[in-house]
């Protein structure tokens, strides 16, 4: 292992949790021909996250956080090694199977550009149901959407409002609703609070933690203030052996060894 952390089992791992994410000897490098990004290597020997476990991931810009999330969500495929999600070898699935798996089991919230701007709140949430294979004409689903939006303290009056007419805070809540509507086991949240003020940020975190309590949550943020919401903290780090930029993860809450 050139970089990364041996993710030893924490005390939290008492067997009552199933493994939601398991990374085993994964390496990845952006193909310069297909990417505008600088050449970046990521190498992670072993790393696990359990259902119901919430982890805070930080790291400087360009450290490979987004690449790491893309690997987790299956939009990028590792060059070698295995990523297993919900105890299934995710990286071995076909593209189609991966898309359907993602729709059903992974919820994603971005920093911005979360929603399709020309769709209404309801349509944005329904789109996630549709791609997960749900029968979107089912009235029960409408009820589910309404309940989720209420839990997120979003007014019913906003149901048919176009996404781009909402405030940033409202958009982030809708994004959470969309991410949670399929009750995913894994939730990936990438710097969702950067555009929110302090009050909105705290409110957002409370709702997120509450609604995602049964999911494995990977929460990426630069804001050290938010660490307090998480019992497990990780950071992406870089080093440059042989003039190559290599990134790995260190798990501060566990027996993290520096690269």
């Amino acid at each position, binding site marked *: 292992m050139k970089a990364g952390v041996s993710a030893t089992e924490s005390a939290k791992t008492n067997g009552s949790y199933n493994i939601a994410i398991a990374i085993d000897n994964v390496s990845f490098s952006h193909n310069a021909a297909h990417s505008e990004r600088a050449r970046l290597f990521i190498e992670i020997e072993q790393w696990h996250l359990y259902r119901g476990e919430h982890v805070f991931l930080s790291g400087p810009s360009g450290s490979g956080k987004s690449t790491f999330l893309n690997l987790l969500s299956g939009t990028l495929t590792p060059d070698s090694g295995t990523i297993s999600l919900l105890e299934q070898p995710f990286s071995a699935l076909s593209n189609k199977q991966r898309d359907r798996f993602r729709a059903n089991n992974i919820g994603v919230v971005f920093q911005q550009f979360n*929603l399709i701007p020309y769709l209404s709140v309801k*349509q944005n949430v329904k789109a996630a149901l549709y791609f997960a294979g749900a029968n979107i004409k089912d009235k029960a689903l409408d009820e589910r959407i309404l309940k989720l939006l209420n839990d997120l303290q979003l007014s019913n009056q906003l149901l048919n409002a176009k996404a781009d007419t909402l405030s940033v805070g409202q958009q982030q809540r809708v994004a959470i609703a969309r991410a949670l509507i399929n009750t995913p086991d894994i939730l990936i949240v*990438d710097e969702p609070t950067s555009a929110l003020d302090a009050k909105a940020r705290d409110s957002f975190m409370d709702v997120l933690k509450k609604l995602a309590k049964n999911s494995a949550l990977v929460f990426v943020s630069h804001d050290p203030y938010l660490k307090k919401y998480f019992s497990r903290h990780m950071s992406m780090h870089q080093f440059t052996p042989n003039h190559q930029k290599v990134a790995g993860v260190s798990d501060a809450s566990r027996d993290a060894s520096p690269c």
Partner: protein
Amino acid sequence: MLTTIAIESLKRRKNTALLTLVSIVISVSLLLSVDIIRSQVKGSFTRTVSGVDVIVGAPSGQLNLLLSSVFNLTTPSKGISWDRVSSLNSDPRVSWLIPLSLGDTHSGNRVVGTTNAYFEHFKYGDKQPLVFAEGGPFAHVGSAVIGADVAESLGYRVDDSIVISHGLGNVSFRQHDGFPFSVTGVLEKTGTPVDKAVYVTLIGLEKAHEHAGPSGIVKPSQSIQRPSNLHAQAHAHTDGETAVHDKDDHDKISHEKAEPEEAGHKEKRYEGDNSPHAHEEDTERQRMGEMDVENNTVSSVSAVMLGLKNRVTALQLQYQLNQRNNEPVLAILPGMALAELWQIMGNVEALLLLLSSLIVMSALIGLATMLLATMRERYQEIAVLRTIGASPAALLILVQLEALLIALAGCGVSLLVVTGLLTALKPWLSAEFGLFLSDTLLSSNSLAIVILVLASTYIVSFFPAYAAYKRGLHAELNSQ
């Protein structure tokens, strides 16, 4: 859901989408119009004559004879003698014969001198006979039978009196007002040139010409006059004067219906005295009415339509007639003449269709370009869709769906525009070009065009759709 996303996406880009839609509507409308008019012209021509085996006229040209005798188009050639008509009538191969005398008009409608054989034997469409909506065939020499459009547009009914004009065109300067005709029958609508024709007896027409006299007196254009006015002109005619009415006067009277019962009063109003010509005319008409309407001996006719006992003899008869040296005539087979017409029109049709198709293709390429141009601004949208589980194939379908929705809307609007426009232009097309559009403008061809346009859209939109697909393959979370 994909359709909803596609519709909302197009609504978001409504300006570019609308412009693209307009270009598709224009191009598809053009293609549909060309095709509809092409098939309507063909249908209209084919519908016009049915069951006529041979048409005989003076040697002029196959198409000219066909167009003048059947379609009331072009200028009729000089006539063929009655002797020749009689000899044709006595030919054992001939079952029936319809003589036609052409060259006059009434309010822009062709006047056809013929016999009752016309109403008995002439058929249109799928061998449908002519049916009278009102009245019946010629009852006396001064009888006239009018087509449905003539009756409708000029408001004529049975027993109305009409006067024909010499020569063709809407504006004629010579009226055969010395011999007015009275309407004895109005034909049911046929959707053929019959609707816009005025049929008078052969002898009546010849009499009308005789009444016009040899001097060729120039008169103001009056398609139809009140009897009083006729009398006024009769004065001018008999006195050898040239009467010129101003335009307003012409406009005022050109659409008025002749009302014989008011003749006396009107006469007073126009002339201030009781013209003796009124009585002369009435006497003349009475005399004509007593003549045998079936005695059709005239000096010559413009053409003759023949129905044969056995159609197999048509080619033989045509050959024999065309070979005669004494008083040469031209015999044509309507079907073959129409085939020649289509041959001439075929190339023009093909060219028009090709041009229209190219215009449609350029509009569809414009649609693809519009979608391709928006692709860059849709990268975020693609990334979002991918992360919520949309496959690259779903993105491909989404873009193609957008293209198909615009094309479908374009085709729908085009069908409405073309149907509406052609329906609105129906009277004008029949009046100006003798093109009788049927009530059902759209055909399986129109459907085929719509399907072809949609299929082309599907193919052309593959390029932007593939760009979305490729982008989807490499889309990453939060990529910008």
